[in-house]
């Protein structure tokens, strides 16, 4: 496979797998009695396994625990690569927040009118 194309596929598989891992960890961190995490965890685990398989096929290695580690590592590198895009968007939002005027709270007006 073309090394450039392979690099693009690895970034895709890695970021999908790592995002799914983050989703599972976020569900653990926010667990509460009203949670029904069964189906979302199953879906996220499926994405992790499918991404690892895709990664292993693209890299020409066995789809084992070492491939899982490589997929997650590639995911960390890929997500770090796109963090500046997130920072660009958040800089714009922070600029908007800094320039805005604090609005009068409609809830207080509602309370006062009653």
């Amino acid at each position, binding site marked *: 496979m073309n090394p450039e194309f392979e690099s693009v596929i690895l970034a895709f598989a890695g970021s999908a797998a790592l995002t799914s891992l983050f*989703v599972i960890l976020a569900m653990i961190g926010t667990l509460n009695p009203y949670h029904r995490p069964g189906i979302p965890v199953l879906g996220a685990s499926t994405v992790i396994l499918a991404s690892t398989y895709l990664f292993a096929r693209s890299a020409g290695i066995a789809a084992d625990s070492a491939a899982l580690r490589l997929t997650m590592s590639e995911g960390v590198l890929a997500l770090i690569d796109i963090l500046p895009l997130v920072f660009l968007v958040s800089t714009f939002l922070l600029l908007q927040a800094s320039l805005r005027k*604090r609005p009068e709270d409609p809830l207080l007006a509602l309370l006062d009118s009653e």
Partner: protein
Amino acid sequence: MSLWAAQVWLGLSIAVIGISMHRTGPAFRRHSFGAPVALLGLAVMLFRVEEPPQPESGVVAAVMGAAMWLLPALAGSALVLIGAPLYWRTRPAPLLTGWALIVVAWFQYYSTLSLALLDALRWVSALLGVILALAVFMLCVRAAERMTPREPETEGLSEKERKYVESILRRHLEVADEP
């Protein structure tokens, strides 16, 4: 997998769990364990006795490299959120300090930037991977919610409950100029 490789993934997992815990609760009072757990995770991930094997050593090196611009970016964003007129009145000192840190972060990032066409393709590919994972998660949440039996409609608030809710709103909205 070696102990030091496991330590990197354990630290990353604890950090993400801590960040998620911190996002629970209302904006004016976050989960008190969130930030300490996230910092513990980062410490477990980054401080170690021995160098972890590949690919984990590459992960740690990339995180340390990104921290050069990520730390001022995070600190600056937090200060701007404190100083901007979102929850309280405008506070010029944290607002200006925050923007100074954000400028430093962009400068740090720009000084290490070396963009090639392949990098742009990898960005797009990574974004698509993130979108795919989130789309699958949302579909799964939707399926889980559809399978949940509907509960009967809740009755309206009693007079006592109305007064209680009103007191909460007044406490958090009227005296909201101090954190």
